[in-house]
């Protein structure tokens, strides 16, 4: 077992553990902080795959913006959720059953796929290949992904306007 595998296993166990805390802990501020921990571990996983730009964007967008937004939302809606009453539905075990079944289904699906069993490692990055400039070129090139990129920017503008409109206090 190589060092990389040991790092991966440790990070994966910590990610799953903190993800489990996100969905089970009673105090929602703690859940949001566990989410930060999960996001950071996912970021380490992505960096292990040497997708460096994604790892940086993960910190900036997820931890810097989304997790902070969650903490704000928890604090703005705090009064009655603090911890009285159950935090889970009465039928939570149905959800657990469905989640376990989905995992079993995905696992079976992966087992049936030939590409899973071949023990080849990650593709070697070609010498002189600059993944960040390749990504930037792909995002604005008409031959590649300029259309999804523009759609995503329109979506962000719509979400911005919609969020301001929905949360606006008319009084």
């Amino acid at each position, binding site marked *: 077992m190589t060092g*990389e*595998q040991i790092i*991966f296993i440790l990070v*994966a166990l910590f*990610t*799953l553990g903190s*993800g489990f805390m*996100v*969905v089970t802990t009673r105090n*929602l501020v703690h859940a949001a902080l566990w*989410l930060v921990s*999960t996001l950071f571990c*996912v970021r380490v*996983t*992505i960096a292990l*795959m040497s*997708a460096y730009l*994604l790892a940086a*964007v993960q910190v900036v*967008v*997820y931890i810097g*913006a*989304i997790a902070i937004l*969650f903490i*704000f*939302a928890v604090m*703005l*809606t705090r*009064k*009655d*959720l603090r911890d009285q009453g159950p*935090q889970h*539905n009465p039928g939570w075990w149905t*959800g*657990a059953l469905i*989640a376990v079944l989905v*995992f079993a289904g*995905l*696992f079976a699906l*992966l087992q049936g796929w030939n590409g*899973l069993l071949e023990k*080849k490692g*990650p593709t070697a*990055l*070609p010498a002189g*290949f600059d993944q960040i400039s*390749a*990504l930037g070129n*792909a*995002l604005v090139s008409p031959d*590649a*992904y300029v259309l*999804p990129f523009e759609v*995503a920017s329109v979506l*962000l503008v719509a*979400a911005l306007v*919609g*969020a*301001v409109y929905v*949360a606006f206090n008319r009084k």
Partner: protein
Amino acid sequence: MVPLSWYLIFAAALFSIGLFGVLSRRNAVAILLGIELMLNSVNINLAAFWRYGDVTQIAGQVFAIIVFAVAAAEVSVGLALVISVYRSRNTVVADEINLMKW
């Protein structure tokens, strides 16, 4: 060297944990936390398929970027809705928000 299957099974487990959170939590903010976990597991899958396929084809990273944008849009609108509902009905418990239930 970590085989591709480890990443895929790890992402499937994280997805299932997020799904459990979405299905079982009562608080609307906690449901959105579960959705974030599911979107993150998708990002792990996209990065893994980029890394273990042809790395000069950058599609996996492009779609991961799109997922980031969608996650940001989804969470901003979702939390705005939660705050708006909290203002008007003074609750964020999902089964008490039943105004449109027929």
